[in-house]
C-alpha cells in the first residue's frame, strides 16, 4: 500500500496524530471529574456519559486541534513526496517543482498565496463557529 492517496492520508495522520493528542490532553483534563461521576451516579452508561457529558465539553478543543491538523496537513510536502511516489500531485509538490524545476517563482508564489488564503478562511470559519457555540452556551446558562 504505497504510491497512492490512501498511503499519503495514513502517513499524514501518523505524522499529525501526536500533535493532536498533545493538543487535546489539556482540554480533556480540564473537564471536571465530578460531571462524569454525577452522570454515572444518575444511571448513565459509560458510553452515554462520554458522548453526552464529556465530549460536548471538549468540542471547542477538538475544533482547534482539527484546525491545527488541517493547517499542518494542507501544506504537507514530505509525506506526499515519499508515500505518494509522484502520483499524488498535491499543491506543495507543484510549488516545489515550480520553484526548483520550472523556475517560475511567481506561479509558485500564487499557489502558496491561494493555499494560505484557503487555510486562513477555513480556520476563521471554524474558530467563528467555536466562538458562536461558546456564546450560545453562555446565553443558555
Amino acid at each position, binding site marked *: 500500500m504505497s504510491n497512492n*492517496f490512501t498511503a*499519503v*492520508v495514513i502517513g*499524514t*495522520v501518523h505524522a*499529525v*496524530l501526536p*500533535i*493532536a*493528542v*498533545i*493538543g*487535546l*490532553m489539556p*482540554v*480533556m*483534563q480540564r473537564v471536571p471529574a465530578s460531571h462524569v461521576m454525577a452522570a454515572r451516579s444518575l444511571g448513565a452508561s459509560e458510553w452515554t456519559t*462520554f458522548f453526552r457529558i*464529556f*465530549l460536548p465539553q*471538549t468540542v471547542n478543543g*477538538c475544533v482547534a*486541534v*482539527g*484546525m491545527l*491538523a*488541517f*493547517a499542518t*496537513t*494542507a501544506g*504537507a510536502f514530505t509525506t*506526499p513526496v515519499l508515500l505518494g511516489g509522484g502520483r*499524488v*500531485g*498535491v*499543491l*506543495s*509538490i*507543484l510549488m516545489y517543482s515550480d520553484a526548483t524545476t*520550472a*523556475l*517560475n*517563482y*511567481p*506561479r509558485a*508564489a*500564487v*499557489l*502558496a*498565496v*491561494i*493555499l*494560505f488564503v*484557503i*487555510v486562513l478562511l477555513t480556520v476563521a470559519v471554524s474558530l467563528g463557529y467555536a466562538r458562536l457555540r461558546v456564546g450560545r452556551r453562555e446565553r443558555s446558562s
Partner: protein
Amino acid sequence: MTATETGARRTLPGGSTALVGEVPELRPGRAQWILDRLSHSVVWIAGLLSVIFLLAPMVIIVIASFNRAPALDVPPRQWTLSAYANISPALYEAFVLSLQLAAMAAALSVALAVPASFWVARTRG
C-alpha cells in the same frame, strides 16, 4: 489612644514620612522606574521582532506573486496579475487534492486523538 489619632509620624528610608501604623505608599525609585521601562521596551521589541520574523516570509511570497518576470525579485520591477489569471485546471485538481488530504487527515487525527487523549488524561493525569 492610637498612633494615628496622635498624628505621630515616622521617617521612611526614601526620606518621606508616614503616619505610624499606616502602610506607606510604595514609590519606586528612579533607577527601578528606568529598569521597568527598559524591560518593558525590551519585551515589546522582542515581540515585534518575533512577529516580523514570522510574517516576513509570507509578505515576501505575496509580493513575489505579483512579479512579471519568472524570478524572485522583491520588490518586483514590473507588477502584474498574470500569474493569478493563468491558473490551469491541473492546479484546481491539486487544490482539491490538497484540501481533501487536509480535511481527511484532520478528521481522522481528531477522531483518533479523542479516545487516545481521553485515555491518557484519565489514566495519567
